[in-house]
């Protein structure tokens, strides 16, 4: 599925893998949308969550907190999280805050 508006968060689904597009700015508004959707998929039994950061330029602290919430939920339900297409700054930020210890970077 191709997202119609890449500036906003969007979602894709195939078998047990769910792909969520983080959009260009991961903040409270877009983050809560992603968190809501991820939690629904995890509760439905999704075993692999892919967060696509290819369009993401900025991630603020609230965005980080929301990603940590998603990671925590996934770990509790035994699901795997993959962060894909991260830019260098985001990788540095995630490494610094420890997110990379809980997810696979692709």
């Amino acid at each position: 599925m191709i997202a119609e508006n890449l500036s906003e968060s969007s979602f894709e689904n195939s078998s047990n893998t769910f792909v969520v597009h983080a959009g260009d700015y991961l903040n409270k508004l877009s983050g809560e949308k992603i968190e809501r959707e991820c939690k629904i998929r995890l509760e439905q039994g999704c075993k692999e969550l892919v967060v696509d950061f290819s369009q993401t330029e900025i991630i603020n602290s609230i965005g980080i907190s929301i990603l940590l919430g998603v990671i925590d939920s996934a770990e509790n339900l035994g699901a795997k999280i993959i962060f894909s297409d991260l830019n260098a700054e985001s990788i540095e930020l995630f490494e610094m805050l420890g997110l990379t210890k809980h997810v696979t970077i692709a």
Partner: protein
Amino acid sequence: MIEERTKLVHAFGALAELGQEVANRHNFQETIRTSLHLISGALGIMRGGVARYSRYGHELNMLAVRGLGDDFPLSLSLCLEDERQFLTNGLNPIETSHARVLPFFQVYDRSFESRRIELFVPLVIRDEIVGAIFLGEKATGETYSSYEKEIICAMGRHIGVAVAQRNLMAEIERQTAENRKLFDDLRTTYNDTVKAFAAAIDCKDKYTEGHSVRVGRYSEIIAAELEWGTAEVEGAATAGYLHDVGKLTVERKIINAPYRINAKESAELNKHPAVGYEILQPIHHPYTDVPLAAKYHHERLDGRGYPDGLYDREIPYIAKIVNLADSFDAMTTDRPYKARRQAPDVVEDLKRNAGKQFAPELVTAFLRGMLREISGDAKDKKFRRLLGREYMETEGMVPLLRKTLNEMKPTSSLTYIAASVGGDGPRH
């Protein structure tokens, strides 16, 4: 070193955002939720919660939680020893693993351990516990560094101030509601006292029984027709109820004289407005001008009234209202020396004297209220209750009232007489 600097920049960014969030005064719950996000996101904390302290219940009640699960208590009680220690500790983060000596950490040890709560931050603002922050492990798995604890302390201060402000607002709202209730009770007591007083005034005059109460009601009708606010309408009614309070000092035989009283008796009776003012002036009324209404309710726009012969604009507005109400009641009730006049005759009298004795806009408002009731536009039958149905529904009243209202001049032409003819300016 570079990573430390990047961490600091990221954390300070979150601290700045938190300051803005608290200052913006959004929905309080949302502010607390966002604050928890900002702390977690600033330092990469997996889970946590923010609680508000109830000093009455001695308990911490959760306002926002992230990842603490359903079995984490939403209300955690503190004993006096805990409170004392937290107050001494201030905003410094406490490591839960090192604080098991305190009853609080013994009681909730299992909950903290199962959700890996590593830090507890008492929110102490102005020497008072207002809440607490619970923070789980960091995503890195490392322990909290001293600089991270300082950042948590700084962010905790922001959140603590937000909680303290909210508590203060809640306390002000509670006290305001209590004061409003007390004021309402006081006002009801005052109004009941005024009505009882009006009944007492009327008891002295067997021929005009109920006069003060009716004048109060007519004054209320006029004020309501002028679209005054609730308190002002109540004030007008009160002024009407108490306008004749000065008659309490006039001899009963003069008040009850079944004939036209002589000059001497008239002079005695005419003192009642000034006496009424003297009685009412020292009382702290919830409405203004009540004493003035008593003093000047016999003044006329054309300056031929008493006690001071004031002209139009010199007469307090409330006194003009009570004057109209008083005169209307005098015309529409039986007196020992005079039977009540018929309704059309009274309407004609009001029109004829508008601009001389009565303020024209008040006559207009009064007659408009009467017309609305007779024609069925007003649900409340105030006039009918005071004057009787038959009296109010005299044949030809509706066309007469419409014609009179059409012919009424909006304001008095005498407004400036005192200044231009009197020469000595307004008298007060």
